[in-house]
Each structure stands twice: as C-alpha cells, then as structure tokens.
C-alpha cells in the first residue's frame, strides 16, 4: 500500500504547490487581462490559453527542451542551483504551472471582469490606493473566482499525465506521480493495483470538485 500512497501523496503535493503558485502568478495576469485595453490583450490571451488546446505531448516535448540542461531556462537553472530542472520535482512544478495556467487565469479573469470598475472607483474616492482597493475590495469580491481557479488548477494538475511523462523521468518519490504509476501498473498488467490507484485518484478528484460546488453554493446564499 505504501507504494500506492507515495505516488498519490506526490500528486497531491504537486497539485497543492502548483495551485498556490498559480494563484499568485495568475492574479496579475488575470487582472491585467480584465482591465487592459491594450492591443496586446488577444496575444496574451492566446498564449495563456495555448495549454488548453495543445496536446500534452507537444507541451512536454518543448518543456523537455526548454527545461533541459541545454535549454534556455534549464541551463540558467543549472548555473544557479547546480542541478537540472528536468527529472526533478521543481521541474514538474514549473511544467504544471505552465500546463494549468489557463485553468487559473480564466476563472479569475471572468471574476475580475464581472467585478467591473465601479466598486474600485468607489474605493479610490474613499481614499484607497490602487493596491489597497485591490486587496480590500476586488479580492474579497472575487472569492468565487479564486475558489474556481483553485479547484480547477488542483484537479487539472492532479490529472496531468502527458507532460509529466515527457519531463518527469518516472523517478519514484520524486516524479512518479499517481497518473504515471497507474499507467505503469496497466502496462505491466497489474490491473488490481491499477484499480486501487485509480479508485483513490477518483475519490480525491471527486472530493475536491464536490467541495468546490458545495462551498460555491453556500457562498451564493
């Protein structure tokens, strides 16, 4: 059972860290998208949405090159830390952040857009700076957007397979997440173990989504 729990725990850890990072990362992007009238908006929108339409193998292939010791980001990382990004948990976090970015940005952008400028203007006229108004008004009024972004990022990262397969290197305890472990079990005809892992993943994913919809319902009241 330990061999089952380790990949599951790794997946949950990866999804959790990715989600937290994404909330920080996606907030300014979503905010900019919701506010801007810049001609660059469609460009940024397209870039952010790319992971939705690209096959994970394409993403994984490019990430393998970019994050690798010979790649732009990878070589810089090697210089900085002495170790490579590919085949490491850190590398998976970076890959997952890129892979799940649209799932964090879209709900936030929608929330920020529906918030509009009105309440922010009211806050400014009451003496709040732009940053103050963002944290005291925009953020709390976008809680549902954040909830959606969190659950979607978490669930999407949890279900990630192709990208991790490409850049992870399937190292137990480091990059062998649950989806890879399940694939291995199926490939080696261990259908019973695959069933157990799949069922676990199913439960975790269901609980995450169920919690979101439940909280969302409460919030609406």
């Amino acid at each position: 059972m330990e061999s089952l729990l380790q990949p599951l725990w790794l997946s949950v850890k990866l999804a959790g860290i990715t989600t937290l990072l994404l909330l920080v990362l996606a907030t300014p992007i979503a905010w900019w998208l919701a506010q801007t009238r810049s001609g660059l908006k469609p460009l940024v929108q397209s870039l952010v949405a790319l992971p939705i339409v690209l096959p994970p193998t394409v993403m994984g292939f490019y990430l393998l090159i970019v994050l690798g010791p010979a790649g732009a980001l990878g070589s810089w990382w090697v210089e900085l830390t002495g170790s490579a990004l590919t085949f490491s948990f850190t590398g998976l976090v970076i890959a997952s952040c890129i892979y799940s970015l649209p799932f964090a940005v879209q709900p936030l952008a929608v929330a920020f857009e529906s918030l509009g400028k009105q309440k922010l203007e009211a806050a400014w006229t009451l003496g709040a700076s732009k940053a103050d108004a963002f944290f005291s008004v925009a953020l709390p009024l976008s809680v549902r957007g954040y909830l959606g972004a969190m659950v979607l990022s978490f669930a999407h990262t949890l279900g990630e397979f192709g990208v991790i397969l490409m850049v992870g290197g399937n190292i137990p305890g480091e990059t062998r997440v649950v989806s890879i472990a399940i694939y291995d079990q199926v490939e080696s005809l261990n259908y019973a173990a695959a069933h157990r892992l799949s069922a676990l993943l199913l439960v975790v994913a269901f609980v995450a989504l169920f919690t979101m919809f439940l909280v969302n319902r409460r919030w609406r009241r």
Partner: protein
Amino acid sequence: MRPHRLLPLLLLLSSAHAEPVTIAVASNFITPMAELVAAFEEATGQAVRVSSASTGVLYAAIRNGAGYAALLAADSERPRLLEADGIAVPGSRFTYAVGTLQLWSADPALAGKDCRGALDDLGNRRLAIANPVTAPYGAAAQAFLQQAGLWDQVQDRLVFGQNIAQTLQFVATRNASLGLVATSQSGSEQLPDATCQWAVPTSMHPPIEQQAVLLQPVDEHAAAAAFLEFIAGPEGRAIIRAQGYEVAD
C-alpha cells in the same frame, strides 16, 4: 515455430486484390515495418495496413476484440499470454527480431571519452533507461547494470523512459548524459551525432526477444500468415538485420 512456411504463395497471389490486411505493430518497430511492408507489397501485391501503439495498448485492444490479423510485439510476454489465452492462433508465435542495447550519449562533455568508463563514475550525470517494469529494453538494461555490478550505485542517477524511444529522447535532448538505448534506434539520421557509444554485449542480459503471433485463423487471413512468413524469410530477415536487430539464423 513457423508452421506456415509451406503456405503456397500462389494462393496468396490469387487474392492479390483482396481487402488490405491490418497488422498491429509495436511502436519501436515502425521503421523496419515500413520497409518490410513495402517489400512485401511489391512481392505479393497484397496491401498491408499498419496499426501501431505500445505493446501494452495493442495487447489491451486485442483482448477487447480489436480485429487485427497479426501482432508484432516488442516483447515475448504479451504474445505468450495471447497464445495461452487462446486468442492467438496456437503455434503461430515466433521471434522475428532480437533487440540489442547501446550505451549512447550526445553530451559534449563525453566527446571522445570512454562511454563504458563514464558509467563507472556518473558524478551528477543522469543515466536514462527504459522502465524495467514495463519495457523489455528496460528489463535488459537493469539486467546488464546488475551484472556489471553498477545497479546499486546508479540508483539515484536513473531516469526512466516510458519506452525505449522516450529513453533515447531523454539522451538526445541531453536531459540525460547517458542512456541505454536500442541499437536499432540510435543509428537514426534524425538524432544528433553520438559523442560516445558502446555496444552492450548481448551476453550481459537476457535476449530482448520481439515476437509475433497470428490472431486470426489461417483460412480466414491467409494474407497475415503470408506476411509473417515473409518477415521470417531471408528477405525479411535481411531488412530487419539492417535495422540494427539480431535475427535468428
């Protein structure tokens, strides 16, 4: 073995314009397969449609009723199971190719160095092998490393490709400095030049047997049987050997 060797080719030629026959082939054998099919079609006029995926995926598909006429697997395990379960035609299983391992690198730091020697002292280099649990080349790589007494010391330097092609990709993109890859694939012109390579002696691991089985009775799919016949024959064996595999004499 090869019970259909005596199948008259004439019988085949009479049905030359029949439906194409669909044969499942393991992904790592796609390149030789294309050459084999071309040669076979030219010789017989019988069209062959190739369906490729990992052996595990093909196996699951066959078990669930996929209508392939024959399977060219990347291992001997799945064909054996299919035969044991009565899905494959009894007695049709045979080894069509034997893979060999190559220690291979594209890392400039290893240029001109002794590839085998680098294995003894990896430092912080990564060594890519195929997943021993799921890929025959991985099991062979593990066996070699164990026999060489290196298995324990390389543990924390290992990365696992899901299959032998991905293992090569790790090395070719220099994400791993060294890799135990398939000789049949490491010679591809698409790859960067090897900075060092070393052929792993076949004596140091169990043979990587790739086996084929017939999945439909001969009288229904004479074409498939003829194709297996063809790749086991002299012309087919020459093609396979030229692709970096060993074949039984």
